[in-house]
């Protein structure tokens, strides 16, 4: 039995976390709905004028499109690399497994500004700066550990006999991978891919270093705007980001169920 005082402590902790976690979102949502010209909370009257404005702003539209392209490229690059690395690390007895693990997690241990500058130098040397795909590749590289973790957690739960059973049924290596291994780790691949997409979509620091005025992505554009003047249209853009993240979580729940995502480490 939980005593009365324990109940009070638990519930106050729960509410404290709910409020601190959701407050910024609520503030931004409120501010975006203002009828006035200033970012303010509570909003001064309700209106959708700022949404209308961002929907019509050409620079925002193009930046949004670029962010989508970057996120798509990052996801497309990360899926095969992350899936194969995740499977290899958890399913095979490799030599230097630990070393490979550390190496793959490296992007995570280095501050983003460090990897950003490094990538900027490399891409600059290759004279590819100024196009969008290097930004996508960079986002894939720095966030790779997420999809590796996600796939590994699915692969560890996979019964090794399943692959032997496939061989026994007459499936060669490639067929075993396509018909049995891949479907079995699919929840991990889907979770990881959505995560990669959202992270690449929101990536700011590395994008800032790798883009120039012609190819700014949405987070970079917002940052540039903040430096001049803060208007409620930025709040509206933020809400769009939040909606995209919620859509991804909804999609994840539909495709694989949230419990897999919550259980994965």
């Amino acid at each position, binding site marked *: 039995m939980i005593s009365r005082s324990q109940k009070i402590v638990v519930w106050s902790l729960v509410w404290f976390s709910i409020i601190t976690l959701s407050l910024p979102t609520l503030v931004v949502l409120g501010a975006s709905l203002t009828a006035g010209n200033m970012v303010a909370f509570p909003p001064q009257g309700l209106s959708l004028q700022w949404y209308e404005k961002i929907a019509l702003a050409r620079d925002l539209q193009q930046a949004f499109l670029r962010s989508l392209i970057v996120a798509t490229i990052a996801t497309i690059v990360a899926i095969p690399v992350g899936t194969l690395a995740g499977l290899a690390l958890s399913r095979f007895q490799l030599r230097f497994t630990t070393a490979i693990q550390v190496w793959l997690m490296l992007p995570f241990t280095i501050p983003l500004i460090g990897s950003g500058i490094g990538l900027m130098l490399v891409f600059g040397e290759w004279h590819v700066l100024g196009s969008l795909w290097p930004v996508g590749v960079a986002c894939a590289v720095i966030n790779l550990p997420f999809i590796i973790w996600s796939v590994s957690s699915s692969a560890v739960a996979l019964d090794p006999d399943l692959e032997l059973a496939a*061989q026994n*049924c007459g*499936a060669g290596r490639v067929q*075993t991978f396509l018909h*049995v291994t891949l479907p079995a780790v699919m929840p991990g691949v889907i979770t990881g891919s959505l995560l990669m997409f959202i992270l690449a979509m929101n990536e700011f620091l590395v994008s800032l270093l790798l883009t120039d005025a012609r190819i700014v992505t949405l987070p970079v554009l917002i940052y540039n705007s903040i430096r001049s003047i803060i208007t409620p249209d930025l709040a509206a853009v933020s809400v769009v980001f939040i909606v995209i993240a919620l859509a991804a979580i909804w999609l994840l729940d539909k495709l694989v169920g949230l419990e897999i995502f919550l259980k994965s480490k």
Partner: protein
Amino acid sequence: MSGGSSAESTAGNPVAVVAQGVDMDFGTGAMAVKNAAFSLERGRFLTILGPSGSGKTTLLRMIAGFQTPTRGTILIGGRPADAVAPHRRSVGMVFQKLALFPHMTVEENVAFPLKMRRFNPREIPERVAHYLDLVRLAGFSKRRINALSGGQQQRVAIARALVFEPELLLLDEPLAALDRKLREEMQLEFRRIQKELGVTTINVTHDQREALVVSDEIIVMDQGEIQQQASPVGMYRRPANPFVAHFIGVSSFLTGRRTGTGLTVNGTECAGQAVDDIAPGLAAQGAIRAEQVRIAAPGGDLSGCDTVLEGQVSDSIFEGERLLYFVRLPALETTVQIYHHDPAEQAPYARGATVSVGWNARDLLIFPAKDR
């Protein structure tokens, strides 16, 4: 190795599987399989029986092709299998944890080997239906695997292993996880299907009852070595060594020295018969089945027994259709186990009661003493 099956074997039954001097060394100290050699005729049901860690599953996995023998050869259908990849062997296997594909339906699981082995796509639905019918799962074809009961999953696994009509069916303790009732039902089911199709089958288990019930032949393994290959009856009646006597059935063991007529234990002569030639005076071990020892009130009727001794009941266990007595024999300084049937008819002997026990010379089997 005693046969017991020679009467059934004919020239029309070619050999399906042969193992010659097969070793498996994982490099972890003791070898998993040592010098395994056996042969199995087509159409027969062989059970490899042994405690966990005896190497029985390793032997099975080598036959399936998942592991390559360190030394020796395995022939399947007369051809050396060493160079044949597992997916090219004509071998169906039911795994211990079944290893059904969770993302496929019943039908898709059973059709998978046919697709992988490039059967005519027009034939596949008919074949799948036929084998689902054989395992009595007609009507379940569209179900998901995790929507089935344990017994139904077993049947899907059997259908998947048999649907491509392999030369050889391997069963890797698939019944171990089932409760007793279902396990016994599935044992009979395995036997029915095997007889119906006549497919050569190798089953692995640690359950001696299962081995006796389902098999035409049994191989007992211990510590990586084959101890004996025989028919169930042959193995039960004529165990090749004390380990087999201990592993199959309930036996009591007497340690002593070989004499002309049996065994002398602690100075007391016990009538018995030697399985191997043992020179008199050498250390020897006798084994006797619990149901071959008779029990009676002191001075009671034990006519026909070659050895009669007195003892005290130290414990008894009620097993329903019979009682298992533990009787301490002071003359031999040992305890023997005795099955007594129809316990309801007679008043059971109380703990501490003095009783007479006796046996026939042919039932006490004498083996050379082994360091075990």
